[in-house]
């Protein structure tokens, strides 16, 4: 058991070294440098997911059903493609907001939100700032 696991780890490290020598590692592979900050971000994101799950659950159980969905465009401040990707996926992961169409060139996301509250929570830009901090952009 331990032998198999350690052999697997050893071979993975050797393959990474081999790829590094071949110079085929690029910045779209797993970004190890942001991993410690990513754990802090994931804990914050999980708290947001639970809070907005409670909010959407209240909307679902309300009788009679009274929802007013919103569809709008949002400009993101991300510089990198990776940051933009994390931002769009975080929006989709949070219940109450879905990123429908994305454009990487001018960093605009079209968003479908279930109510006014989730829309204003996104427009405040807290998540955008957190991801800029996560990606290590200087001009936060």
């Amino acid at each position: 058991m331990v032998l198999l696991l350690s052999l697997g780890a050893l071979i993975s490290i050797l393959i990474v070294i081999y790829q590094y020598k071949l110079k085929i590692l690029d910045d779209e592979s797993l970004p190890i440098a942001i991993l410690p900050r990513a754990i802090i971000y994931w804990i914050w994101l999980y708290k947001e997911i639970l809070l907005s799950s409670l909010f959407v659950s209240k909307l679902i159980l309300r009788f009679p059903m009274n929802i007013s969905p919103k569809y709008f465009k949002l400009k993101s401040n991300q510089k990198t493609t990776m940051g933009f990707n994390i931002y769009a996926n975080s929006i989709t992961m949070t219940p109450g907001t879905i990123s429908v169409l994305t454009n990487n060139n001018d960093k605009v996301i079209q968003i479908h939100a279930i109510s006014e509250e989730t829309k204003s929570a996104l427009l405040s830009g807290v998540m955008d700032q957190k991801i800029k901090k996560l990606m290590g952009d200087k001009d936060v």
Partner: protein
Amino acid sequence: MGIVFSYFSNFMLIIGSLFLLIGAIGLIRMPDVFTRMHAASVMETAGASLIIIGLIINTGFTIVSLKLIVILLAIFYISSVATHALARACIHDDLKPIAINKESDQ
């Protein structure tokens, strides 16, 4: 100590199941496909993650809990990409959300 962990894990499982039930009710009650996706995302984030965390606490920290953590990460990544793909396909198929129709009426 074992009893405390057992109660806590049962509590997590019950809360997660409640989220799954609420999501299922929402899938029936919501008016159109986009709002139904919001109800489904309650199930696949809060419901699934609370149930898996309950199971991890129940098994203790063994190789099984490591596998459960991998399943949890896979569910998070796959569900967000699948929801985005579904919404994008609906827009490309000219299925307008009721949000756009309401704004054009006013």
